[in-house]
């Protein structure tokens, strides 16, 4: 699986838009980019997945440039409940594989 690099931590005020960027320079042609959210003492929760350009759901948007060597998770108007660790993962969408989580980005939302 492609290795990913994310900022260790970020702070944001409530109501602001938060963008978390993930670098994945050796992404393969058939790899997808997936983001998970994890609250303390809970299992990770799937947020969004994309392959190229832009994907949006009710929770977040995912922006992927043409070279796919990075991606940005965008959280609109964050609230205190968005304080969590966010993980970027890269790999094929199906098949048997070892799913590798990095250390993630700890987002702290400030009132």
């Amino acid at each position, binding site marked *: 699986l492609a290795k990913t690099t994310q900022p260790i931590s970020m702070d944001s005020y409530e109501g602001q838009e938060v963008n978390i960027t993930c670098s994945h320079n050796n992404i393969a042609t058939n790899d*997808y980019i*997936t983001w998970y959210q994890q609250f303390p*003492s*809970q*299992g*990770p*929760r*799937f947020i969004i*997945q994309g392959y190229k350009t832009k994907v949006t759901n009710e929770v977040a948007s995912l922006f992927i440039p043409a070279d796919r060597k990075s991606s940005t998770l965008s959280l609109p108007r964050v609230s205190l409940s968005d304080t969590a*660790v966010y*993980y970027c*993962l*890269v*790999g*094929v*969408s*199906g*098949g*048997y*594989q*070892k*799913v*590798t*989580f*990095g*250390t*993630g980005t700890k987002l702290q939302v400030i009132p």
Partner: protein
Amino acid sequence: DAGVTQSPTHLIKTRGQQVTLRCSPKSGHDTVSWYQQALGQGPQFIFQYYEEEERQRGNFPDRFSGHQFPNYSSELNVNALLLGDSALYLCASSSTGTGGLYEQYFGPGTRLTVT
């Protein structure tokens, strides 16, 4: 619709003992993966089960073993516990043979403390 359930919630064991953790996948899912998450770290992949067979394994010693039952539930067994095995153990389920990155559903985890 019940999500992924795990038992027990917490567990305290002594070094050298053996432990069994249990997981029931989300309804309709037949693939189960296990992860170990140490404090402050991301989840580390232990292994994945589909059709009652281990399909993939991470870099964990043979002390870690598992099983999947016909009803798709799964067990994680750890023998000869070490202090370093203290962690949150997560179970994740997904649908047929995928188990990849697409929408794995995680349980709440079992917090194992080895003293």
